[in-house]
């Protein structure tokens, strides 16, 4: 069933005594206008000008006729196939069905927002109303409750540990006299089980508290929302809480000072050759968890929520989200290292909006088989090409994939993969991109094709797609400074990252709107101040800063 067809067109015209015939093959439908086509014919065949108008008419008629018959033929073919049963009519109807039910509002089931989304709507309207303060204070109260429980837990666990150590010390001292080796083993086992029970008791207690708080909070929010819908005047609870916050004592001298000053420097840059878009860059030197953790903030001795908290809460359901990139190992859990610390921060207060971190990780795990399938497909496609190029390397890659399978590893995370968690209870962050990185990041010679850098590209792309307007990226692709990270190593890495991020931003901005975005480059807190300034001096050489105001001496 062709879209176009070539037909012979013949045209006859007479001059005084001779009869001339023009025969050309014409592709129907014409790609250009008839007039233009005729002009070409006139040029190519040196036709007399008196024939032009007639030729135009004849050609137009010819094209219309042939076009119509082409379309008729195509239509007849399609109909015939169904009529003859070559195509099953039921199959055909079944192909059409989803096309309509999945793409047209008219035919699809009306969308029913989930419980979370309904809550989101209510919350978003309340947080942009006078009830804002109340909400934050309530959240804060709840978080203090969690804090108390965590303190108790830590004390209890410490106490248990101490007791067990004493027991063990005593037992070890008396080995061979009172206790046998087996007894020691038994004791160790008992202690272990004991601490497991205690720990799990605390875990369940904590999650119970989270659940309880979440339920209470949500119910309260819904109730307040209903109340505020009813009467237009400020509801009493707001007035009450207003007066409470008004009654806060004045800040004391030492509290007025910013608690911890972190090293940071901001830049406004232009991207693009002709059309310029304006963006913000910030270089900051701090620990990544500092962006997540709520810092104690007191006014007049009373602990109150941090101002950043307000910003984060108000923008949670907006079109301007904050994300942070965190580097993790390839295991999807929270047992070790920075992942564990992050999990502690997450659990230190209740997330009223999203599932717990653990639950989110479980959901992510469910996606792994699907992803593995896609990966395998892609590898297969690539593999076919690669095989033709180099046959000898196939043995090594084959063994590698076998290895993967032995570990059940198709479900494993690979370097450059990332998973995403959402949080409402962190300080300056809504979403965390956990990028899987391996140890070779420490070597100095990584290129722009390194999986982690590709992951950053993918993340920037997602940020543009999903309205994440502020993204924090670890500039050196590390969260901690180590010995081998020399000044030259740092500078080289910073340069690579700046250039890559610049490229990615230009790439992503190509077809998207002119919105400005903020990229924060994070360097570990262990970095020297001097090196920080060296890195910040590099920014103007790589990015085009917006026109500076030059101060004139006169």
């Amino acid at each position: 069933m062709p879209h176009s067809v070539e037909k012979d067109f013949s045209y006859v015209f007479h001059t005084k005594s001779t009869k001339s015939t023009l025969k050309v093959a014409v592709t129907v439908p014409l790609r250009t206008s008839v007039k233009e086509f005729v002009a070409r014919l006139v040029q190519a065949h040196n036709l007399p000008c008196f024939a032009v108008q007639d030729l135009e008419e004849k050609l137009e008629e010819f094209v219309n006729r042939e076009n119509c018959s082409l379309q008729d033929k195509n239509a007849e073919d399609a109909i015939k196939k169904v009529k003859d049963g070559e195509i099953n009519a039921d199959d055909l109807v079944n192909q059409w069905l989803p096309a309509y039910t999945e793409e047209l509002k008219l035919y699809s089931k009306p969308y029913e927002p989930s419980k979370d989304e309904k809550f989101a709507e209510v919350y978003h309207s309340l947080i942009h109303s006078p009830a804002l303060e109340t909400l934050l204070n309530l959240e804060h109260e709840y978080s203090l409750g969690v804090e108390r429980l965590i303190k108790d837990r830590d004390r209890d666990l410490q106490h248990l540990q101490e007791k067990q150590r004493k027991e063990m010390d005593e037992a070890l001292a008396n080995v061979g006299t009172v206790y046998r080796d087996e007894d020691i083993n038994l004791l160790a086992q008992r202690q272990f089980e004991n601490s497991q029970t205690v720990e799990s008791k605390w875990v369940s207690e904590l999650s119970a508290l989270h659940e309880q708080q979440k339920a209470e909070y949500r119910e309260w929010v819904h109730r307040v929302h209903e109340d505020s819908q009813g009467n237009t005047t400020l509801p009493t609870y707001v007035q009450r809480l207003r007066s409470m916050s008004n009654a806060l004592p004045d800040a004391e001298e030492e509290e007025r000072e910013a608690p911890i000053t972190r090293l940071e420097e901001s830049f406004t840059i232009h991207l693009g050759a002709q059309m310029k878009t304006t963006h913000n860059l910030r270089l900051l030197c701090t620990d990544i968890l500092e962006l997540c953790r709520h810092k104690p903030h007191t006014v007049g001795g009373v602990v109150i929520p941090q101002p950043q908290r307000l910003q984060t809460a108000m923008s949670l359901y907006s079109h301007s989200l904050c994300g942070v990139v965190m580097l993790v190992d390839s295991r999807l859990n929270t047992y070790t290292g920075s992942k564990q610390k992050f999990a502690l921060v997450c659990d230190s207060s209740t997330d009223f909006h999203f599932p717990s971190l653990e639950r989110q990780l479980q959901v992510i795990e469910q996606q792994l088989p699907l992803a593995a399938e896609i990966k395998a497909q892609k590898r297969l496609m690539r593999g076919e090409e690669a095989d033709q190029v180099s046959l000898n390397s196939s043995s090594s890659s084959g063994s590698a994939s076998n290895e993967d399978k032995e570990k059940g590893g198709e479900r494993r995370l690979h370097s450059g993969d990332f998973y995403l968690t959402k949080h409402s209870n962190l300080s300056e962050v809504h979403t965390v991109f956990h990028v899987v990185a391996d140890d070779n990041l420490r070597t100095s010679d990584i290129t722009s094709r390194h999986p982690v850098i590709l992951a950053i590209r993918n993340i920037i792309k997602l940020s543009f797609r999903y309205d994440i307007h502020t993204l924090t990226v670890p500039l050196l692709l590390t969260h901690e400074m180590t010995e081998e990270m020399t000044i030259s190593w740092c500078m080289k890495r910073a340069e690579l990252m700046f250039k890559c991020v610049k490229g990615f931003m230009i790439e992503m901005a190509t077809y998207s709107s002119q919105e400005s975005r903020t990229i924060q480059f994070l360097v570990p807190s262990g970095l020297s101040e001097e090196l920080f300034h060296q890195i910040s001096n590099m920014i103007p050489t790589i990015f085009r800063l917006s026109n500076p105001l030059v101060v004139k001496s006169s």
Partner: protein
Amino acid sequence: MPALGTAGFGIRTFYAATHPNDKCGANGLPLTPNSVKILGRFQFLKTLSHPRLCQYLDISKTKHECMLVVSEHHSSSLKELIKKEGSIGESEIVRVGYQLLEGLCYLHNNGVVHRNLSVEHVLLDVEKNVKLSEHGLYYMTDYGADVSFPIGLPRYMAPEVLCSGPVRVDEETGHCVQPLSGPKSDVWAFGLILLQLVLGKEIWARLGIKETLHKIVEMIKSDMSPIDIFQQDATVASKLQGTSRELRDVLRLCLTVSAAKRAKSSELKQHPLFRDERMKAVPHKEEVRMCTTELRCKDLELPTYEETIENEFSDDHLSRRSMSEVFYLWRLAGGDLEAVLRKAGLAKTRRPVHLLPCYGIVDGEVFGQDRDFAELLDFTVVPLSQEQLRYRLRDVPATAYYPLLEEESKVVETQSLPTSPSSGELTSSASLPLVIREKDVEYQFHRIILYERLLAAYPFKRPCIWREARVDIPPLVRANVWAAILEVEGDVEGMYDSIDKETPTTTDRQIEVDIPRCHQYHELLSSPSAHAKFKRVLKAWVLSNQQYVYWQGLDSLCAPFLALSFNNEALAFACLSAFIPKYLHKFFLRDNSAVIQEYLAVFSHLIAFHDPELSNHLDGIGFIPDLYAIPWFLTMYAHVFPLHKIVHLWDTLLLGNSSFPLCIGVSILQQLRDRLLSFGFNECILLFSDMPEIDIERCVQDSIKIFCSTPKSATYRQHARPNKKKTSEDRPNLSYYSRDYHDQPQSELSMEPIPIDELKGEKCCRISAEDLIELGELAGAAYSRSPTKKRQTSKPMILIVDVRSPEDFRRGTLQDSINIPFQTAFSPEGDLNPCSAVQTLNSRRNQVIIVVGNRGRNAANFANELVRLGYSRVCVLHKGLDVFRTTGLITVPPADI
């Protein structure tokens, strides 16, 4: 574009299909988003104007591939008519049917298939006339390939459409795999609509999609005619029996399974059923374009007096303006499409935080993301209220809608704006910055009406257009005004059609490489439709200028014209063809080095003339114009700035002569002056590799100032366009501003070609004896061509420095000149040796300093030294004092005091 009449505007949305992750096209570049493709294809639909169609007005894309389409809208539809009135009489059915056919025939003749015909999409205006809507969806989405939803309701699906199955998109080309639907699928839907009108109710109203489709399948498989199948229902049969044989015949012709046997829309129009309607119908007249050889007065019927009275008595003058104009004003009056949608609750999307995926792999594939329900197709049309616009224009008197274009002799410079009670206000807004004027609805309203009238009288009113353009050009009419200023005339389309733009040539490859890099941030220009047009216009230019070659940069030059006259390639081509000889004469020669070298040398002179400090600094670090200014001049800044700035720059540039671009260059340097002065070579290179943001309005104002304070002969170039034979009297010799040096009469006192090496060796520009006479008023304060001298009462603005030996000086020199002999002028340190003449020189630093010498190089060298010492506005008399021998202007200076 039809007049507004009683029509309203409506807006609808749909989502374009997104591409799979990171897919690349055949050329290795990322795929163009479908939304951009649609944007490009849509433009053609704007040119379709017919009384039976809802006029398409505008398309824009918002975040995440959402398209907003604005078109004419009417609140009632055929669906409501059927619902409300049930069956209508046969004469009414025939009337509606014929009007439908008129619309369909027009579409089909223009190669557009509706594919979306249904009773909902047939709107009725207040006089119950048919207006087809949604007729462009199938066309603009590349026959359904660019969207994920099917086009057309299942009930109206023609058999061949159903049999082809839902659209499958070819992975490589991005186009639809199946054959495209022909016009006859519209005829089937037309038949169904007609049938429903006869029945007075919707057919299969209660059936689901599946059942509906099975009904059609049944018809396909059956050997009976579909109309007979319908008649198996007794009520249908009885209704049909009550109609005329001719109507039944039309129904049978439409509702035929076999497409080949089904009638064509043009055939149906000739059916005996519509005999009476055909008699009554008024033939539709196509709008005439600005430059055409067709007779504009063809079948012109002067309205009779009564008719005029009747029409003029309508108070609603706005309704007589064209729709595009009213929509343009609607926007300016605070119309915001997205806000309208938000208010109607249509733009409601889910919260981004809920849509986020939860897992991504290194290839960029992501998992766990949710689909936004808002992306599903919704047929709702939100009407746009014209209230605010009408409120803003409530005080505009009726006379302002019909401004008189006075006789030219009566027009005084200051009265360029229409005289209306509010014109005082208008002249005050005329002094506001351009960006504000462009957003002022009332100001734009007056300007557009004025221009529209002037353009209708083009080329007769060209002097008026020219004069108005010096105030400003409204964006809405810019394409045509530019064409008028560039003196585009004649059979533009015929010319363009006669060029063979299809046969491959050797430059094709380069053009194809350049286009995807040219102003691609501009949504329209980045669409495949624009790329095709780009290629055709560029090829046409290369083919029609055989003496020239394609140089990179030609694409950038073409971009502003194409963006403005997107639907009129021929006009864009004509403008480009007129623009290049005017400003870039010989720039596109295969070997253009001589031309460019001369241009750059004159540019350096101009920098030295206006800003010696900057010139010295740049020369000192070796940052010569060759390193940065070639793309500026080769593309007339079209490569340097984004389109919205280029249009403002060119608005003025087009009015200036061929040396005006040089002044723009100087004004750009002046904006960056502080930074350039503090920068070394590498930083300068870096600065210009990625041009910093330039305030374009300031740039324009500065360049006008620079232009006006530059003696005309200072920018003399031997490679500029030679004098045109025809002296165009229709363009006013408003000022010196618009004339080229070459257009002035030549004499032996004029400039003459200077060898390029000599030119490059000098730092200062040369001035002709003619200019000197004028500037110095040596021949009396007679008729002046030069704006340099503004006030008649002021002192002459030049200082003539005679650098010959004192003996020569005493023997005879020019009036009022001072003598600083070159031989003794400078101390060994390079400073000027103090003397009374030097004091005079220092006290009159704002004036143009003209260094006069003998034929040797002394004068030039002296001038170079002055520039080095930071004297501005220094130039050298061309050919030395000897040139005045015959003029009798040489006098003996008064004796030294």
